[in-house]
């Protein structure tokens, strides 16, 4: 463990003092951070830009997300945990793969995969404890403290977006980020669209980290949002649309 209990207490103490101080001065000196407001958060991933920069970017999005959220790097592929990762077109869109001639130019193109924060999420439907639930703004959440580890949600997610902690993940975290909880064995986890950053008025970490600005974050229900403009102009596809889970992750392919 990189962080000791004492340090944690100190951190907690500091925050307390900080809160007290800002309360005392009545918020004149410290501007309160406001949460981003949206009714249906979504991502648009520009596959073209992503591919162009892939050689040099070093998958910054994955790196930042995983280190920020204490995602362990477990060497055993079968037990690995991932929130956002890269997959070839033919694995990301197996149903399009059959249409070989049409999609020839997309072959071997890297696609970033993550939880789609589906509008009609099967993982939420099947969870027996509401440990997986959908927020008003469309984010599909995970409550690690309630999850019983039945893995029904993993069977139900048609996108393979969920990971299970087969063993204690903590020894596999290179550097613990004390600001985000690490998980225990026996629970499911996945991308939660940086809900904790959105609450502080920040955009998701992967969006911020991408040097090519290939990922756009926005509110689908807000007509003035940039994401809607982009979706109107470009050709976008979503994974397994035929299942009508309505993913909130769009891939701009043209």
């Amino acid at each position: 463990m990189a962080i000791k209990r004492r340090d944690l207490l100190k951190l907690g103490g500091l925050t307390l003092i900080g809160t007290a101080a800002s309360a005392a001065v009545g918020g004149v000196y410290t501007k309160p951070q406001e949460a981003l407001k949206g009714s249906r958060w979504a991502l648009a991933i520009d596959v073209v830009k992503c591919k162009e920069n892939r050689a040099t970017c070093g998958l910054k999005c994955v790196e930042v997300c995983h280190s920020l959220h204490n995602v362990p790097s477990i060497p055993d592929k079968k037990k690995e945990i991932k929130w956002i990762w890269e997959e070839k077109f033919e694995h990301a869109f197996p149903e399009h793969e059959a249409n070989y001639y049409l999609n020839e130019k997309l072959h071997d193109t890297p696609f970033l995969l993550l939880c789609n924060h589906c509008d009609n999420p099967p993982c939420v439907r099947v969870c027996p404890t509401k440990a997986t639930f959908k927020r008003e703004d469309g984010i599909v959440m995970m409550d690690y403290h309630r999850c019983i580890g039945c893995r029904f949600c993993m069977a139900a997610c048609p996108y393979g977006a969920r990971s299970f902690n087969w063993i204690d993940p903590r020894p596999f975290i290179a550097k613990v980020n004390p600001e985000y909880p690490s998980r225990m064995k026996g629970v499911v986890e996945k991308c939660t669209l940086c809900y904790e950053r959105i609450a502080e008025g920040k955009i998701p970490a992967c969006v911020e980290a991408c040097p090519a600005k290939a990922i756009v974050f926005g509110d689908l229900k807000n007509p003035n949002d940039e994401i809607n403009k982009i979706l109107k102009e470009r050709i976008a596809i979503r994974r397994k649309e035929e299942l009508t889970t309505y993913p909130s992750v769009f891939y701009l392919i043209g």
Partner: protein
Amino acid sequence: MIEKALTGSKKYWLWLAFLGTLIFIGFLCYLLQWKIGLGITGMSRDVSWGFYIANFTFLVGVAASAVMVVLPYYWHNYKDFGKITVLGEFLAISAVLMCMLFIFVDLGQPNRVLNVLRYPTPNSVFFFDACVLSGYLLLNLLCGWTVLHAEYKGTKYPSWLKPFIYLAILWAPSIHIVTAFIYQGIPGRHFWLTAIMAPRFLASAFSAGPALIIILALLLKRVANFDAGQKAIQTLAKIVTYAFVLNLLFFFFEVFTAFYSGIQSHQAPIKYLFAGLHGHAEWVPFMWASYILAFIALILLVIPATRKNETTLAVACLSVFIAAWIDKGIGLITGGYTPTPFETITPYRPTLPEIGIAIGIWALGFFVLTILYKIALGVKESKELRVKYQGVLIKK
């Protein structure tokens, strides 16, 4: 009544000791899993259910199948099932017990199992499964025990029990239907997303379960001097036959749908299981063994002469049981997870500790079953003696 379980031959105690050893080994394996986590199993990110859930699914069928002896006896007043009925009810009890244990050992956070009741979630099929399973356990305990107790006292079971008996009969298929719905209602898993899943479950249950009862009845005849009656066994054999034919037919329907439609994603799991896919053929020998056994069983069951012969009937029932176990236990789960959502293949193989835990649970089920049967047969035996006292002949 319980005292009947405390006296027995040397063989009885040896058998219990043997089962006890297996339970203990299973328990040790579980301690390991408790400490390290489900990582000791062969399951993976891609195949996140394995041996435990497979055995659970199979045993739900065994539990539900008790209805096949209970229903004719109580509903149609089919007297010939009089002696075998309690065997069915007690089999259901131990099978449900095993089901619950298999779910329990499959949980990543077993100490939170009560969350299912603390946060009831009616949109989750799991919630209903937990409800119907525990309800079924209670109903069978109540009915089996009360009926046997009445017999022990030499009276007929009380009339207030009737509604519960009927409820138990209606309840039985529900446990299997709800379990089928766990699979049947999930998008993107082509092998499971089929409306015939629940009927398939029922057909395989109503063949494998009664097949086990026949095997047990034939066994008891040899080791415990208990004869369930030729007629009861033959009627049950016919039930096995019809249900098994339906079961095979249903499978054929699945194959037809997948292959005649030409939809490749529906064919892939079947190809993987029976021929191998992308160079992966882990379960091909098992699946073929299952269907060869099924074929043998079919022939032995359909021909009246072999069905009436106790030896060939036993072979047929054993084949039905093993074939259904492989089909449910291996085919259903791995077929559902293969190919993965990325159209890749991640092979699943249960590990030794995983198998150890599973054997431990089976042993526990048979331990409970042995004790329950010992009590039941003890009661029946003593009653039979008395009947013969009051009659003309005093035997034994």
